[in-house]
C-alpha cells in the first residue's frame, strides 16, 4: 500500500571535508536552502510538491502543519498551497504534462 513515506526522496549534502556553506552566504543570496557548515553532514527526506515539482525538505522541527492536497492525496509546497487557497484549484504537474502531450499529439 502506498504511504506518505513511500514517496519520499532523499538529499545528502556532505561537508565533512569541506569549509561548507555559511548562514551569511545563504542569507546574502536569498536562498531557501540548508546552510551546511564546515564538517557537517545534512541528510534528510524530502517530498516533492505535486503541483510545481519543488523540493520540500521535511524538517522534523517544523511546528506548522505540512501542506497536503486532499484532492490529489499529495504534498504541496507552501507557495502552491497559498495559490490553492487563493484560487481554489490545484493543478498537478502530471496534469500539466498530460495537457502538453495532448496539445502536441492533437
Amino acid at each position, binding site marked *: 500500500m502506498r504511504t506518505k513515506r513511500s514517496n519520499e*526522496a532523499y*538529499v*545528502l549534502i556532505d*561537508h565533512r571535508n*569541506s*569549509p561548507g556553506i555559511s548562514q551569511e552566504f545563504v542569507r546574502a543570496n536569498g*536562498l531557501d536552502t540548508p546552510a551546511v557548515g564546515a564538517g557537517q553532514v545534512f541528510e534528510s527526506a524530502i517530498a516533492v510538491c505535486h503541483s510545481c*515539482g519543488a523540493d520540500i525538505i521535511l524538517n522534523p522541527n517544523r511546528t506548522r502543519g505540512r501542506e497536503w492536497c486532499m484532492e490529489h492525496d499529495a504534498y504541496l509546497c507552501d507557495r502552491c498551497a497559498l495559490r490553492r487557497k487563493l484560487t481554489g484549484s490545484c493543478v498537478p504537474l*502530471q496534469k500539466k*504534462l498530460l495537457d502538453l502531450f495532448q496539445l502536441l499529439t492533437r
Partner: protein
Amino acid sequence: MSVYAFQVATITPGAGTADNVQMPAAGWMELVGGSALQTNCVDEVYMGGQAASTAPLIMLLAPDSTKAATPTALASPNSLGPTNVNAGVLTAPAVGTVAATTPPTRSNSATVAKKNFTFNAFGGIVRANYANTQDRFTIFSATAPAGAASLSSFTGSTAASAIGAHILFETL
C-alpha cells in the same frame, strides 16, 4: 523503461548566470529530450566538488527557456548511456550537452520547478535521489522549455570552481 546516466567528469560552472540570460560557453550540462513525445524523469542528481579552495556554488537544475543550439557531441570522458548493459536501446535517446555554439538560457518563470543545490565545491558532495517520488523533475518533448533542462550555476557562485556530476534519468 531504461534508466540512463548523464555523467561529466569535470565542469567549471563559474560565477553563475542569472535566469533568462544566456549561459557561458561551458560550465553547464544540459539534457534535452530525444523526440517530440519523449518523457524523461530525473531520478538522481549528484555533484562532487573538485575545487582547490573554498568555492560555494549555487547550482540549479531548471528548465531552459532556450535550449543549446548547435551542440557539440558529447565526448569522453563525459558520457550518456543506459545504466544497465542489457537495457533496451532507444532509437532516439535523450541528448546530453556540455558545449554548444549557442549555450542554453535558464527559464526565469516563477511557476516552473527548479532544484537548488547549494554546496561548497571544495570537498563538498551533494546527492539528491528522487527515484521513489511520483512527481519527479520531468522533461517532456525535445523542445524548450518543457523538453530541455540544465544543471548550471546561479549568480553568486564562485568562479573557476570545478565539479564532477551525474544525472540519472528514466526515459518513459
